Protein backbone atom coordinates (compact mmCIF):
# COMPACT_ATOMS: atom_id res chain seq x y z
CA UNK A 1 0.00 0.00 0.00
CA UNK A 2 2.88 2.36 0.77
CA UNK A 3 4.02 1.89 -2.83
CA UNK A 4 0.56 2.53 -4.20
CA UNK A 5 -0.36 5.77 -5.88
CA UNK A 6 -3.42 5.93 -3.61
CA UNK A 7 -1.12 6.28 -0.62
CA UNK A 8 1.51 8.43 -2.31
CA UNK A 9 -0.80 10.86 -4.14
CA UNK A 10 -4.12 10.78 -2.34
CA UNK A 11 -3.35 10.63 1.36
CA UNK A 12 -3.46 13.89 3.27
CA UNK A 13 -3.57 15.26 6.76
CA UNK A 14 -6.78 17.16 7.54
CA UNK A 15 -4.83 20.41 7.53
CA UNK A 16 -3.28 19.75 4.14
CA UNK A 17 -6.64 18.76 2.68
CA UNK A 18 -8.19 21.99 3.95
CA UNK A 19 -5.33 23.94 2.50
CA UNK A 20 -5.75 22.31 -0.92
CA UNK A 21 -9.46 23.07 -1.00
CA UNK A 22 -8.92 26.63 0.18
CA UNK A 23 -6.31 27.24 -2.49
CA UNK A 24 -8.47 25.81 -5.27
CA UNK A 25 -11.40 27.88 -4.10
CA UNK A 26 -9.34 31.06 -3.77
CA UNK A 27 -7.91 30.68 -7.22
CA UNK A 28 -11.33 30.12 -8.77
CA UNK A 29 -12.87 32.95 -6.77
CA UNK A 30 -10.22 35.30 -8.07
CA UNK A 31 -11.13 34.28 -11.63
CA UNK A 32 -14.81 34.86 -10.89
CA UNK A 33 -14.05 38.32 -9.48
CA UNK A 34 -12.06 39.07 -12.59
CA UNK A 35 -14.94 37.92 -14.79
CA UNK A 36 -17.39 40.10 -12.89
CA UNK A 37 -15.06 43.07 -13.04
CA UNK A 38 -14.81 42.59 -16.78
CA UNK A 39 -18.56 42.24 -16.99
CA UNK A 40 -19.20 45.52 -15.22
CA UNK A 41 -16.62 47.27 -17.37
CA UNK A 42 -18.20 46.00 -20.56
CA UNK A 43 -21.74 46.85 -19.40
CA UNK A 44 -21.49 50.47 -18.22
CA UNK A 45 -25.17 51.03 -18.99
CA UNK A 46 -26.43 48.80 -16.19
CA UNK A 47 -28.65 50.51 -13.67
CA UNK A 48 -27.61 50.66 -10.06
CA UNK A 49 -30.30 48.16 -9.21
CA UNK A 50 -29.01 45.77 -11.83
CA UNK A 51 -25.46 46.19 -10.63
CA UNK A 52 -26.49 45.46 -7.06
CA UNK A 53 -28.47 42.43 -8.17
CA UNK A 54 -25.44 41.00 -9.98
CA UNK A 55 -23.17 41.84 -7.06
CA UNK A 56 -25.48 40.02 -4.65
CA UNK A 57 -26.21 36.93 -6.76
CA UNK A 58 -23.00 36.37 -8.70
CA UNK A 59 -20.92 35.66 -5.63
CA UNK A 60 -18.13 33.09 -5.59
CA UNK A 61 -19.06 30.01 -3.61
CA UNK A 62 -17.14 29.29 -0.42
CA UNK A 63 -14.88 26.30 0.19
CA UNK A 64 -17.57 24.72 2.33
CA UNK A 65 -20.20 25.24 -0.36
CA UNK A 66 -17.91 23.61 -2.90
CA UNK A 67 -17.55 20.60 -0.65
CA UNK A 68 -21.31 20.39 -0.09
CA UNK A 69 -21.99 20.42 -3.81
CA UNK A 70 -19.29 17.87 -4.61
CA UNK A 71 -20.56 15.55 -1.91
CA UNK A 72 -24.13 15.98 -3.12
CA UNK A 73 -23.20 14.84 -6.60
CA UNK A 74 -20.89 12.13 -5.28
CA UNK A 75 -23.84 10.69 -3.41
CA UNK A 76 -25.84 10.80 -6.63
CA UNK A 77 -23.12 8.85 -8.39
CA UNK A 78 -23.66 5.94 -6.04
CA UNK A 79 -27.41 5.90 -6.50
CA UNK A 80 -27.10 6.39 -10.26
CA UNK A 81 -24.61 3.55 -10.49
CA UNK A 82 -27.07 1.39 -8.58
CA UNK A 83 -29.82 2.16 -11.07
CA UNK A 84 -27.48 1.26 -13.92
CA UNK A 85 -26.62 -2.00 -12.14
CA UNK A 86 -22.96 -1.17 -12.12
CA UNK A 87 -20.70 -3.19 -9.80
CA UNK A 88 -19.98 -1.75 -6.36
CA UNK A 89 -16.30 -1.24 -7.13
CA UNK A 90 -17.13 0.75 -10.27
CA UNK A 91 -19.37 3.07 -8.25
CA UNK A 92 -16.70 3.42 -5.57
CA UNK A 93 -14.03 4.22 -8.14
CA UNK A 94 -16.30 6.78 -9.80
CA UNK A 95 -16.83 8.49 -6.44
CA UNK A 96 -13.08 8.47 -5.77
CA UNK A 97 -12.33 9.95 -9.19
CA UNK A 98 -15.08 12.55 -8.84
CA UNK A 99 -13.99 13.78 -5.42
CA UNK A 100 -10.32 13.81 -6.38
CA UNK A 101 -11.14 15.80 -9.53
CA UNK A 102 -12.44 18.57 -7.32
CA UNK A 103 -9.25 18.71 -5.31
CA UNK A 104 -7.62 20.40 -8.27
CA UNK A 105 -10.64 21.93 -9.99
CA UNK A 106 -13.25 24.23 -8.63
CA UNK A 107 -16.98 23.77 -9.15
CA UNK A 108 -16.91 27.38 -10.32
CA UNK A 109 -14.71 26.42 -13.27
CA UNK A 110 -16.42 23.16 -14.06
CA UNK A 111 -19.80 22.42 -12.51
CA UNK A 112 -20.03 18.89 -11.10
CA UNK A 113 -22.83 18.00 -13.48
CA UNK A 114 -20.42 18.31 -16.38
CA UNK A 115 -18.11 15.56 -15.13
CA UNK A 116 -20.74 13.38 -13.51
CA UNK A 117 -21.17 10.94 -16.39
CA UNK A 118 -17.54 11.26 -17.41
CA UNK A 119 -16.32 9.90 -14.10
CA UNK A 120 -18.79 7.03 -14.14
CA UNK A 121 -17.91 6.03 -17.69
CA UNK A 122 -14.19 6.34 -17.00
CA UNK A 123 -14.57 4.28 -13.84
CA UNK A 124 -16.27 1.56 -15.88
CA UNK A 125 -13.28 1.45 -18.20
CA UNK A 126 -10.76 1.56 -15.39
CA UNK A 127 -12.43 -1.26 -13.50
CA UNK A 128 -12.62 -3.51 -16.55
CA UNK A 129 -16.37 -3.12 -16.86
CA UNK A 130 -16.29 -1.80 -20.37
CA UNK A 131 -19.54 -0.48 -21.82
CA UNK A 132 -19.38 1.26 -25.19
CA UNK A 133 -19.96 4.99 -24.94
CA UNK A 134 -23.08 4.83 -27.11
CA UNK A 135 -24.63 2.23 -24.85
CA UNK A 136 -23.56 4.10 -21.73
CA UNK A 137 -24.93 7.41 -22.99
CA UNK A 138 -28.23 5.78 -23.88
CA UNK A 139 -28.61 4.19 -20.43
CA UNK A 140 -27.56 7.40 -18.72
CA UNK A 141 -29.86 9.48 -20.93
CA UNK A 142 -27.11 11.78 -22.03
CA UNK A 143 -24.96 12.30 -25.10
CA UNK A 144 -21.64 10.72 -26.01
CA UNK A 145 -20.15 14.20 -26.29
CA UNK A 146 -21.16 14.96 -22.72
CA UNK A 147 -19.63 11.71 -21.51
CA UNK A 148 -16.30 12.14 -23.28
CA UNK A 149 -15.87 15.92 -23.27
CA UNK A 150 -13.82 16.16 -20.07
CA UNK A 151 -12.18 12.73 -20.08
CA UNK A 152 -8.68 14.06 -20.62
CA UNK A 153 -9.13 16.76 -18.03
CA UNK A 154 -10.26 14.10 -15.58
CA UNK A 155 -7.23 11.97 -16.36
CA UNK A 156 -4.89 14.93 -15.84
CA UNK A 157 -6.61 15.93 -12.62
CA UNK A 158 -6.17 12.41 -11.33
CA UNK A 159 -2.44 12.75 -11.99
CA UNK A 160 -2.82 9.72 -14.23
CA UNK A 161 -3.28 7.50 -11.17
CA UNK A 162 -6.11 5.07 -11.73
CA UNK A 163 -5.70 2.20 -9.27
CA UNK A 164 -8.04 2.20 -6.31
CA UNK A 165 -7.97 0.12 -3.17
CA UNK A 166 -11.45 0.23 -1.70
CA UNK A 167 -12.40 -1.09 1.73
CA UNK A 168 -14.66 -3.80 0.26
CA UNK A 169 -11.91 -6.37 -0.24
CA UNK A 170 -10.53 -5.58 3.20
CA UNK A 171 -14.01 -6.25 4.58
CA UNK A 172 -14.01 -9.65 2.94
CA UNK A 173 -10.55 -10.27 4.38
CA UNK A 174 -11.59 -9.38 7.91
CA UNK A 175 -14.77 -11.42 7.47
CA UNK A 176 -12.53 -14.43 6.86
CA UNK A 177 -10.00 -13.65 9.56
CA UNK A 178 -12.66 -13.05 12.22
CA UNK A 179 -13.97 -16.54 11.49
CA UNK A 180 -10.51 -17.96 12.04
CA UNK A 181 -9.62 -15.95 15.13
CA UNK A 182 -13.04 -16.26 16.77
CA UNK A 183 -13.48 -19.81 15.55
CA UNK A 184 -16.59 -21.36 17.08
CA UNK A 185 -17.43 -18.18 18.97
CA UNK A 186 -19.39 -16.34 16.33
CA UNK A 187 -22.65 -17.24 14.63
CA UNK A 188 -22.17 -17.44 10.89
CA UNK A 189 -25.59 -16.16 9.96
CA UNK A 190 -24.97 -13.15 12.18
CA UNK A 191 -21.57 -12.65 10.54
CA UNK A 192 -23.25 -12.66 7.16
CA UNK A 193 -25.58 -9.91 8.30
CA UNK A 194 -22.67 -7.91 9.72
CA UNK A 195 -20.90 -8.25 6.38
CA UNK A 196 -23.92 -7.03 4.43
CA UNK A 197 -24.48 -4.05 6.74
CA UNK A 198 -20.82 -3.09 6.65
CA UNK A 199 -20.75 -3.21 2.87
CA UNK A 200 -23.49 -0.55 2.77
CA UNK A 201 -21.69 1.54 5.37
CA UNK A 202 -18.51 1.44 3.33
CA UNK A 203 -20.33 3.13 0.46
CA UNK A 204 -21.27 5.93 2.85
CA UNK A 205 -17.75 6.17 4.21
CA UNK A 206 -16.38 6.68 0.69
CA UNK A 207 -18.28 9.96 0.62
CA UNK A 208 -16.31 11.32 3.58
CA UNK A 209 -12.74 12.55 3.91
CA UNK A 210 -11.86 9.34 5.75
CA UNK A 211 -10.61 8.07 2.39
CA UNK A 212 -7.86 10.69 2.48
CA UNK A 213 -6.90 10.30 6.14
CA UNK A 214 -7.03 6.55 6.63
CA UNK A 215 -6.14 3.37 4.80
CA UNK A 216 -8.87 1.12 3.43
CA UNK A 217 -8.40 -1.54 6.13
CA UNK A 218 -8.57 1.14 8.83
CA UNK A 219 -11.85 2.36 7.34
CA UNK A 220 -13.13 -1.21 7.34
CA UNK A 221 -12.20 -1.74 10.97
CA UNK A 222 -13.90 1.53 11.88
CA UNK A 223 -17.07 0.41 10.18
CA UNK A 224 -16.89 -2.96 11.89
CA UNK A 225 -16.50 -1.13 15.18
CA UNK A 226 -19.60 0.92 14.42
CA UNK A 227 -21.56 -2.15 13.41
CA UNK A 228 -20.67 -4.34 16.38
CA UNK A 229 -18.30 -2.94 18.96
CA UNK A 230 -18.27 -6.04 21.14
CA UNK A 231 -17.36 -8.29 18.22
CA UNK A 232 -14.63 -5.93 17.05
CA UNK A 233 -13.11 -5.49 20.49
CA UNK A 234 -13.06 -9.24 21.03
CA UNK A 235 -11.41 -9.69 17.65
CA UNK A 236 -8.82 -7.05 18.45
CA UNK A 237 -8.09 -8.64 21.80
CA UNK A 238 -7.48 -12.03 20.30
CA UNK A 239 -5.85 -10.85 17.09
CA UNK A 240 -3.69 -7.96 18.19
CA UNK A 241 -3.37 -8.62 21.88
CA UNK A 242 -5.50 -5.66 22.87
CA UNK A 243 -6.20 -5.73 26.58
CA UNK A 244 -9.68 -5.15 27.84
CA UNK A 245 -8.70 -1.72 29.09
CA UNK A 246 -7.47 -0.87 25.59
CA UNK A 247 -3.73 -1.36 26.13
CA UNK A 248 -1.55 -3.72 24.13
CA UNK A 249 -0.60 -6.86 25.93
CA UNK A 250 2.83 -7.15 24.35
CA UNK A 251 5.22 -8.95 26.56
CA UNK A 252 2.72 -11.26 28.15
CA UNK A 253 4.16 -14.76 28.11
CA UNK A 254 1.07 -16.67 27.07
CA UNK A 255 0.30 -15.03 23.72
CA UNK A 256 -1.17 -17.21 21.01
CA UNK A 257 0.68 -17.69 17.74
CA UNK A 258 -1.83 -15.32 16.12
CA UNK A 259 -0.83 -12.60 18.54
CA UNK A 260 2.81 -13.33 17.95
CA UNK A 261 2.25 -12.88 14.22
CA UNK A 262 0.42 -9.66 14.82
CA UNK A 263 2.95 -8.29 17.26
CA UNK A 264 4.21 -5.97 14.60
CA UNK A 265 1.14 -3.86 15.33
CA UNK A 266 0.66 -1.66 18.34
CA UNK A 267 -2.86 -2.68 19.23
CA UNK A 268 -3.79 0.35 21.30
CA UNK A 269 -2.48 2.69 18.64
CA UNK A 270 -4.48 0.83 16.02
CA UNK A 271 -7.60 1.16 18.14
CA UNK A 272 -6.99 4.87 18.50
CA UNK A 273 -6.63 5.27 14.74
CA UNK A 274 -9.75 3.22 14.13
CA UNK A 275 -11.74 5.30 16.61
CA UNK A 276 -10.55 8.51 14.94
CA UNK A 277 -11.62 7.09 11.62
CA UNK A 278 -14.97 6.18 13.09
CA UNK A 279 -15.49 9.75 14.21
CA UNK A 280 -14.66 11.12 10.75
CA UNK A 281 -17.06 8.67 9.11
CA UNK A 282 -19.78 9.45 11.66
CA UNK A 283 -19.54 13.18 11.08
CA UNK A 284 -20.51 12.79 7.45
CA UNK A 285 -22.45 15.63 5.89
CA UNK A 286 -25.48 14.74 3.84
CA UNK A 287 -26.07 17.83 1.71
CA UNK A 288 -29.70 18.80 1.24
CA UNK A 289 -31.05 19.21 -2.26
CA UNK A 290 -32.01 22.81 -1.53
CA UNK A 291 -28.43 23.66 -0.64
CA UNK A 292 -27.22 22.07 -3.85
CA UNK A 293 -29.76 24.06 -5.87
CA UNK A 294 -28.75 27.35 -4.22
CA UNK A 295 -25.05 26.72 -4.73
CA UNK A 296 -25.61 25.69 -8.33
CA UNK A 297 -27.56 28.91 -8.90
CA UNK A 298 -24.68 30.97 -7.51
CA UNK A 299 -22.27 29.23 -9.85
CA UNK A 300 -24.59 29.79 -12.77
CA UNK A 301 -24.76 33.52 -12.06
CA UNK A 302 -21.00 33.72 -11.62
CA UNK A 303 -20.52 32.18 -15.03
CA UNK A 304 -23.40 34.13 -16.60
CA UNK A 305 -23.83 37.48 -14.82
CA UNK A 306 -26.23 38.62 -17.51
CA UNK A 307 -28.58 35.84 -16.43
CA UNK A 308 -29.19 37.81 -13.25
Amino acid at each position, binding site marked *: *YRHSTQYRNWSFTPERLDQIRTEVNASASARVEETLKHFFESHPDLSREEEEAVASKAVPVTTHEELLLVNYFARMIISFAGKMNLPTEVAATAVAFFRRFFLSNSVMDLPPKEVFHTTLFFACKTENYFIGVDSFAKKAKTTTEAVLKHEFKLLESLNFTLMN*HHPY*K*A*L*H*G*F*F*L*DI*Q*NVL*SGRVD*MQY*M*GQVYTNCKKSISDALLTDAVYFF*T*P*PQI*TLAILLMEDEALMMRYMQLKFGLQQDGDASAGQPSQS*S*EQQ*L*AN*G*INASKLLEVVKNCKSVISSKIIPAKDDAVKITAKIHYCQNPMAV
Partner: protein
Amino acid sequence: DLHKRYVLAESQYDDPFIKSLQTKKEYIASGFRADLVYDRMLTEAFM
Protein backbone atom coordinates in the same frame (compact mmCIF):
# COMPACT_ATOMS: atom_id res chain seq x y z
CA ASP B 1 6.51 -11.15 2.82
CA LEU B 2 7.90 -13.39 5.51
CA HIS B 3 5.75 -11.99 8.31
CA LYS B 4 2.22 -11.92 7.04
CA ARG B 5 -0.28 -10.75 9.62
CA TYR B 6 -2.67 -13.55 8.88
CA VAL B 7 -2.82 -17.28 8.59
CA LEU B 8 -4.75 -18.58 5.60
CA ALA B 9 -7.00 -21.14 7.28
CA GLU B 10 -9.24 -22.23 4.45
CA SER B 11 -10.94 -24.94 6.46
CA GLN B 12 -12.12 -22.35 8.99
CA TYR B 13 -13.85 -20.14 6.48
CA ASP B 14 -17.54 -20.32 5.88
CA ASP B 15 -17.88 -18.24 2.75
CA PRO B 16 -21.00 -19.49 1.00
CA PHE B 17 -20.41 -17.51 -2.16
CA ILE B 18 -16.85 -18.69 -2.71
CA LYS B 19 -17.76 -22.22 -1.72
CA SER B 20 -20.53 -22.25 -4.31
CA LEU B 21 -18.10 -21.14 -7.01
CA GLN B 22 -15.70 -23.92 -6.09
CA THR B 23 -18.26 -26.48 -7.14
CA LYS B 24 -19.09 -24.89 -10.50
CA LYS B 25 -17.63 -26.86 -13.35
CA GLU B 26 -16.62 -23.86 -15.45
CA TYR B 27 -14.77 -22.42 -12.46
CA ILE B 28 -12.96 -25.65 -11.69
CA ALA B 29 -11.96 -26.09 -15.31
CA SER B 30 -10.73 -22.49 -15.57
CA GLY B 31 -8.32 -22.96 -12.72
CA PHE B 32 -10.26 -20.96 -10.16
CA ARG B 33 -8.80 -21.40 -6.70
CA ALA B 34 -10.52 -20.31 -3.53
CA ASP B 35 -7.22 -20.02 -1.67
CA LEU B 36 -6.04 -17.38 -4.13
CA VAL B 37 -9.23 -15.39 -3.54
CA TYR B 38 -8.86 -15.68 0.23
CA ASP B 39 -5.21 -14.72 0.04
CA ARG B 40 -6.02 -11.60 -1.93
CA MET B 41 -8.77 -10.49 0.44
CA LEU B 42 -6.59 -11.10 3.46
CA THR B 43 -3.73 -9.21 1.86
CA GLU B 44 -6.02 -6.23 1.29
CA ALA B 45 -7.19 -6.45 4.89
CA PHE B 46 -3.73 -6.49 6.37
CA MET B 47 -1.88 -4.21 3.99
